[in-house]
């Protein structure tokens, strides 16, 4: 088996406080099970997580930089869609 034949996986880790899974990085692994274990070894060494998702990078459909303007520019001037008119208390975490 050559080095390049190990597929790329994307790793998502959930912290312990009911947060969402967050993309933390990627890795190579021979299969799904080993990807999960490699993710544990690479991305949860410092007490970061209670749950891990791994998914083959090729399974992710991503938006293209070429489509950046038609995709995202239209929302740039719709300030009324943002809840920016509320005062946010300083001690609210994760906002």
């Amino acid at each position, binding site marked *: 088996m050559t080095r390049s034949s190990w597929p790329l996986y994307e790793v998502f880790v959930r912290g312990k*406080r009911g947060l969402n899974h967050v993309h933390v990085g990627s890795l190579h692994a021979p299969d799904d099970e080993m990807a999960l*274990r490699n993710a544990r070894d690479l991305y949860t060494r410092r007490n970061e997580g209670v749950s891990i998702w791994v998914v083959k990078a090729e399974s992710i459909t991503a938006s293209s930089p070429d489509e950046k303007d038609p995709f995202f520019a239209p929302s740039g001037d719709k300030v009324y869609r943002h809840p920016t008119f509320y005062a946010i208390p300083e001690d*609210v975490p994760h906002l």
Partner: protein
Amino acid sequence: MDNAYDGLTDAGEEKHWAFGTGFTDALTGVGRDIPAVDREALTAYCLMLGDDALVYSQRLAEWCSRAPELEEDVALANIALDLLGQARLLLSRAAEVEDAGRDEDALAYLRDERAFRNVRLAEIDCGPGPGGDFGTTIARLLVFSTWRLALFQRLAGSADPVLAAVAAKGVKELAYHRDHAAQWVLRLAGGTEYSRERIVEGLAKVWAFTDELFATHPVEAALPGVAVDPAELRAEFDQVIGTVLTAAGLDLPETRQVAPLAGQSGRDGIHTEAMGFLLAEMQHIARSMPGAVW
């Protein structure tokens, strides 16, 4: 409750730091009472278990930057660090029970080969040196972690509160080490002809040191209720190894066992040729610059 969000964070945690807080000391709240047993034997027993972890940790650390893949490099280093953590707690306990002015560093760095009490399986070269390869390394990891997990599961009930706590913590670590090894055995055995050959030869090599793991030492016999009699671990060990090998479609190795020398082996300070080289590498900085800190 003054703040509706307090419930989202654990006490003492930094609120705005999403990951990686809330570390705890492994032995918080554990009593340091020394049970009413022969202190010399208890010191020796802590050294045995500590030296197994320290010496094997040193061997695993040799893979750092040399594993077949970056991911495996980190995995083996993590396992080495788990074992180093166990070694520190156990050597500290040995120093405490011995009460002769030595600390964990003195025990790790300033003892000579004959004073080390690790089993010989921990010290042999299974790669990346000339004595082995990744297959041999995985074979040793399977044998060592299966044996030590069975030992620690029983040691968690020890009358020594520190040994019991170290074992309870170590069980979770060792369960992962064993799983990691088993996963790789399955993949090497089911991979290519060459990978299968590597794991078969690796198992044959390390198997020669298995009988020593289950030989009851006088130190263990002198500590009923505190030490675990390794002879009791054999059945569970054979069953677990049998399950993994069956799943991998491999036969149990039939290797002639490396016998004790005049009745003595690793637990008595009688080691293989590899041990001196290992200690030289592990100890030379500490010995050439005594008391150095950074």
